[in-house]
């Protein structure tokens, strides 16, 4: 049952804080054009099915892929929509993988598209409304709105992440310079990526620390921007991939594990994640994906990693939780240059989510960039040859985590 899946191409649009020259369908058609022009041997007729996703709260459009049918070239073709909040891009990639791996007759080539145009709506409202349902319960049980706004005023995504940051800092005893160093590396990498949003080739640690706090320990200079952008990835079977590109990238392991929410429990109960930086869900997700891909020693076998970290403390945490480094040693790795472009295990050479964050597309851009690094066609290509790479995403209230493990050799588990 099932068959091997390969990625043959990935396309991006230019990300900016306000893409005022396009509306949503035109944005994704740019990404699709960029994706298909790298594979000149096929055209729209050869695409058998589509998978589409974004976070609908930001643009005020419900199920927008119904409207965008013609711009995607999906007229009279199968189409499926998958959305899961912050991990939308990751789940779109995984849905694209499953569409091909299932082996439904006639569906061999699938185009996966993730996009977001955050300038059309209000990001803060969109993110805060995750908890609207639970906040009303608190209000019914006697807590006044005024007290609620004080309690939840730490803000939506930034608030939950700062709890996680405090716990991580308590465990690993890192300083703010460590956090700023991660930001500097990411923004300098983004300066060489053509589609990234915040390109700062001359950023220094002092400049990052010179900005005020949003929510301890995160400063304004450290957090991700809100961008408009789209990304498209083309999946196909092993046989067809050989005709489409020189180095097809085989998808060997996928997983998207959900854990219970952190900070806020459902229906006014407490949260079961006592330490939000422990991330059992992410560790299980990584274990599952590595098991499917046949990777036993992640530190040795993985050559490149793209982790989803809008905040620098998360990048330090994820590289430990995903098995790439030992616990509490990540800051030293960044200091010693192990994770830089020319290091042993480069991380986020496209600038990562710290430099570009179009929420619906970010978790798709991580596997897309990792795939391009394996193919040798990334805009900030690492000097060494990359054989195995991972793309990762997280979302929700610190409880959803997606992983995709790719390699240039197929993992033939269906023998």
């Amino acid at each position, binding site marked *: 049952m*099932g068959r091997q899946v390969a990625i043959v191409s990935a396309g991006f649009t230019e990300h900016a804080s306000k893409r005022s020259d396009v509306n949503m369908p035109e944005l994704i058609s740019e990404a699709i054009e960029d994706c298909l022009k790298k594979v000149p041997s096929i055209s729209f007729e050869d695409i058998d099915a589509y998978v589409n996703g974004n976070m609908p709260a930001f643009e005020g459009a419900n199920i927008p892929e119904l409207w965008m049918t013609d711009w995607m070239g999906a007229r009279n073709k199968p189409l499926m929509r998958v959305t899961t909040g912050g991990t939308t891009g990751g789940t779109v990639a995984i849905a694209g993988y499953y569409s091909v791996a299932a082996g439904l007759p006639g569906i061999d080539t699938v185009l996966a598209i993730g996009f977001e145009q955050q300038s059309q709506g209000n990001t803060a409202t969109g993110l805060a409304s995750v908890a609207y349902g639970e906040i009303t319960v608190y209000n019914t049980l006697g807590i006044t709105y005024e007290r609620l706004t004080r309690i939840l005023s730490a803000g939506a995504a930034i608030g939950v992440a700062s709890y996680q940051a405090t716990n991580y800092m308590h465990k690993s005893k890192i300083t703010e310079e460590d956090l700023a160093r991660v930001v500097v590396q990411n923004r300098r990498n983004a300066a060489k990526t053509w589609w990234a949003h915040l390109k700062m080739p001359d950023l220094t640690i002092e400049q990052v620390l010179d900005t005020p706090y949003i929510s301890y320990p995160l400063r304004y200079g450290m957090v991700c921007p809100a961008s408009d952008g789209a990304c498209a990835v083309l999946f196909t079977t092993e046989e067809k991939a050989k005709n489409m590109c020189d180095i097809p990238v085989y998808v060997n392991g996928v997983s998207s594990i959900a854990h219970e929410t952190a900070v806020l429990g459902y229906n006014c109960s407490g949260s079961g994640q006592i330490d939000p930086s422990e991330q059992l869900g992410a560790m299980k997700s990584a274990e599952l994906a590595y098991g499917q891909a046949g990777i036993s020693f992640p530190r040795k076998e993985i050559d490149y990693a793209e982790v989803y970290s809008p905040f620098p403390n998360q990048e330090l945490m994820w590289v430990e939780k995903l098995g790439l480094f030992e616990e509490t040693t990540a800051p030293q790795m960044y200091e010693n240059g192990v994770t830089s472009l020319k290091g042993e295990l480069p991380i986020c050479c496209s600038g990562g989510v710290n430099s570009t964050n179009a929420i619906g597309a970010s978790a798709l851009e991580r596997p897309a960039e990792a795939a391009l690094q394996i193919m040798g066609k990334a805009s900030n290509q690492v000097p060494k040859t990359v054989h195995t790479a991972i793309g990762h995403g997280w979302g929700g209230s610190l409880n959803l985590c997606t992983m995709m493990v790719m390699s240039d050799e197929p993992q033939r588990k269906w023998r």
Partner: protein
Amino acid sequence: MEKVGIVGYNQVKLYSDANYGRYEMIFEAVRGAIDKAGLKKKDITTVVSCTNDYYDGRTISNCFTVDVGGSYLTDESKVEMDGAHAVLYGLMRVLSGNHKLAVVWGGSMASCFPYHSARLYETDPTWERPLAYVNDITSAGFQMRAYMEKYGVSVDDIAKVSVKNRKNAAKNPLALEEAQNANITVKDILESEIYADPVTELMVAQPCDGIAALLLAPEKQALKITDNPVWITGVGYSQDTYYLGDRDLSTCKSMENAGKMAFKTAGIKNPKEEIDVAEFFEAYAHEELIFAEALGFADKGKGASIESEINGNLPINPSGGAIGGNPPCATGIIRIIEAAKQLTGEANGYQVKGVKKAIASGQIGMCAQNNILYVLEGSN
């Protein structure tokens, strides 16, 4: 395509204004489905849910349902279309070989929000939404008028579909109470309030509260779990273009394409002879006739000539269809469950005799823009 079995299912009774909380309802549906199959929480390997951010009033609507949906520390994802598309994703996950038991649940509570205002957000924001002349209400009127004018179908024929479905719903204990009208006549339907001329209110599938869940397993595991699993032998899905002016509203091209793909996968050459029961998701009464013609059960314009009663030639919607209750995002799953009940002989009160093959459909979008069709077979 290898066979995938439906090994358990559960649906809560549909209410137009339920006294439940959302999490309680999800737990009842999912736990009931697992208990029916005799399995445990640890057997679940993947969960696919189907909810909609706008219908739930919060973003990331699958974020807080991790505990109640059975997806604690399991592979979980969310499809934001009709419930039948979530079953498709669950099917893909099982067919890939990575998972052995998939739980699919979906639904929402339509009494919590103004349904038509939320549907307005599906429209084109630049050209259609400011004036709101084209929305889900008026598009139903356009479709019915186009169908009637092209083929000369009378309003009575379409009203008869609604009468049949409402009488069938009266025999279905889980259908919506307002839709269970055992003594309704064509005159009642035509004299009810105008929805969008010529569509009247009793021809519309009323949105309500409800959640449904079902379990999927690959062939080998399905035979170990239950003695008579229902096999999914074919699936087809397709999306038409968006603007109403670009389509021929009197036929349904997306249902034709979905039917072609599903019948080819299942190996059905003559659907009119081989299919014994059909469960369509018809958002309006006229869509049932349009779908039946698109799949080849009748010639174009002659959909009303099909004997679609429970004891007729080709029973359509013996459980009442979507007119018997339409919880947004769950209706597709309920259609598949009802078709499965016909195949296992558990449809008490509205059972069709001698069912070997059945079809079930789901749709999303204005005037059925995206359709999905399943072909189901029994095991005996």
